[in-house]
């Protein structure tokens, strides 16, 4: 099963290679990995998408926690969460094809951010599945180049990952927090799927 892990790690040279090295040394999967400093410049936040059985993902989480540079991590799949990925696609846009691509971009709520006589660059944001769906929808012969950022993810409701607070929701959540969580869980058609 696909899991999204959010990891806070020390913003040191080499911290990234410790994580990457762990995955290759132990033959774990990485589907995507993004990392950047947070509001606290000593801390980087990494979002790592992996897949495997529950046992494997449990082992991945434990091994990551064991790395000295890893401050904290959560498996976003443990609760409701939002994921986003940014994609830029350069497509051939000629003659009649120009209109068709434009229509598709509108349907997917993307934007065309660069236009030449023969090409468009399309910017699209969303869950990875949505980006996959766009690529499937566009005639493959038109696609010149695709670049994706990999997934960024965040938990919904009061569950938050930062250096100062516990990783799980507080043991006795406030009333407001409880109802926010309920709302998050109960959302029938969460906006993040679009």
């Amino acid at each position, binding site marked *: 099963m696909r899991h999204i892990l959010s990891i806070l790690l*020390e913003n040191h040279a080499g911290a990234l290679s410790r994580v990457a090295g762990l995955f290759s040394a132990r033959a774990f999967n990485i589907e995507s990995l993004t990392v950047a400093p947070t509001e606290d410049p000593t801390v980087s936040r990494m979002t790592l998408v992996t897949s495997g059985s529950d046992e494997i993902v449990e*082992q991945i989480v*434990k091994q990551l926690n*064991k790395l*000295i540079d890893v*401050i904290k991590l959560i498996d976003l799949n443990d609760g409701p969460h939002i994921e986003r990925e940014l994609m830029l696609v350069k497509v051939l846009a000629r003659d009649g094809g120009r209109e068709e691509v434009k229509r598709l971009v509108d349907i997917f709520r993307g934007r065309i951010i660069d236009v030449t006589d023969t090409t468009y660059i399309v910017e699209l944001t969303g869950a990875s599945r949505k980006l996959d769906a766009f690529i499937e929808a566009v005639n493959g012969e038109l696609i010149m180049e695709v670049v994706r950022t990999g997934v960024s993810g965040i938990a919904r409701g009061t569950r938050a990952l930062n250096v100062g607070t516990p990783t799980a929701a507080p043991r006795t959540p406030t009333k407001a927090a409880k109802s926010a969580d309920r709302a998050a869980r109960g959302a029938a058609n969460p906006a993040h799927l679009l």
Partner: protein
Amino acid sequence: MRGAEIFVQALKDEGVEYLFGYPGGAVLHIYDELFKQDAVRHILVRHEQGATHAADGYARATGKPGVVLVTSGPGATNCVTGIATAYMDSIPMVVFTGQVPTHLIGNDAFQEVDAIGITRPCVKHNFLVEKVEDLAPTIRKAFYIAASGRPGPVVVDIPKDVTADSCEYYYPKNIEIRSYKPTGKGHPGQIRKAIQLIFEAKKPMVYTGGGIVLDDAAEDLKEFGHLTGFPITNTLMGLGGYPATDPQFVGMLGMHGTYEANMAMHHCDVLIAIGARFDDRVTGNLEKFCPYAKIVHVDVDPSSISKNVPVDVPIVGSAREVLREMNQLLREADFKPRDKSNPWWRQITEWSALDCLRYDRTTDVIKPQYVIEELYAVTRGDAYITSDVGQHQMWAAQYYKFDKPRRWINSGGLGTMGFGLPAALGVQLGFPDSIVCCVTGEASLVMCIQELSTALQYNLPVKIINLNNRYMGMVRQWQEFFYDRRYSHSYMDALPDFVKLAEAFGHVGMRIEHARDVQPALKEATGMKDRLVMMDFLTDQTENVYPMIASGKGHHEMHLAPGNPQPQPSDRELA
């Protein structure tokens, strides 16, 4: 204070007695400071691999971190085997590698290597010291990380200019690392669940590993053993964690474990694993591992739990703390220890009666097992034994009955040939008045033979027990069993004359060719308190290590030595 002075002062503040090292360009400032003092004693090895193994042996025997100092480039790469050895067995070690000056890093400078990158997969953590202000705190962190939690080696890479630069010296006593908080006490609810299982168990079994030794929990394990009356087995790394002469001890388990230990593992209904990691050499075929057991696993490293075998009651915590907690609860609950008359113990006694470690004692050809048994007798079981890797290692583990922890020093996880001799030097430094023996074979021994010079320089009277069968015995054994006796490159041709070799290095050499000479020779050698003695035992060439679980087999499918009755009871009748 200059960086080099800070380095030496930090080691003093850390209480480092011995520094195993080899000088070179990038660490010359540090060596100059070492020259000016004698609080930290530098042991000059003959190869950097020897430095790491010696520091490792010292750490295993004393419990204090081993400390190594080498130069950049080849100095660092020569350490990798020793660092990996310590990593696999969770040995606290701090390795300082010199590095080219910071402005040259990345320029392919002379003797430059990415030591941090090369060692990353085999260290608990590593550091590159970028400026002199970071030097003292980094050294403190390195020692703290190496020795706490699940211990392990830490590499600190120090560019040459950092040792020349100056800053004020401050050595922090305590250190906080926000991303590193090792667990101590186990979860009380989980411990209660474990106690519940202890009460319910009809066929209990206790399986403990190196964690007992590393955490100095042997006394607590002994108490746990006596409070419960349960049978106890140790892994290769855990030998000495429970006294081998105690009647509840059923021997080592695993590939070359005893029949009774492995059978008890297979048939137990509650398995209590403490400080062990379910290594493949221990478990055999995972599909057939402990099929009837509920498993409790106590380990300080959460990633060891349910890694290979799913566990029913995981307890993250230090072996010592959790054992104390469990002992306390057992005393409070007035647990009645199982006595030997109950059916489970009667069954185990029946398995033991098979005497699976029997071998031919009538011949005058030297049986390697006999040498170990005599060594045990002559040293009254009180020696420190290091070993290399192979058949001799298994025989030492099977036939030397370790009653105390930290007496059995071997490379269990990585299986590093060449470990034994330098490790013995480290042990002897830690315990100058004790008998330290290196049980080895002629193939392993020559892998770090150069350290005989180190032994002479520092007058380390190690006794080398060379079980010389003119083969890489374990390789030969597998070729005999699994490759139709095609002995591909496992015969040791062109061997040196080990007696002359010892003498050339300034030591005493002995050759022993008959069983009747074994005991007198051992007595004579151990009597030479101030000389290293190389004892070259010409042993039976084709002796094999038994019992054995072939790969893919379960604990109940052991091969016993030929000539033994092989009463393999069917699975069903015992279930």
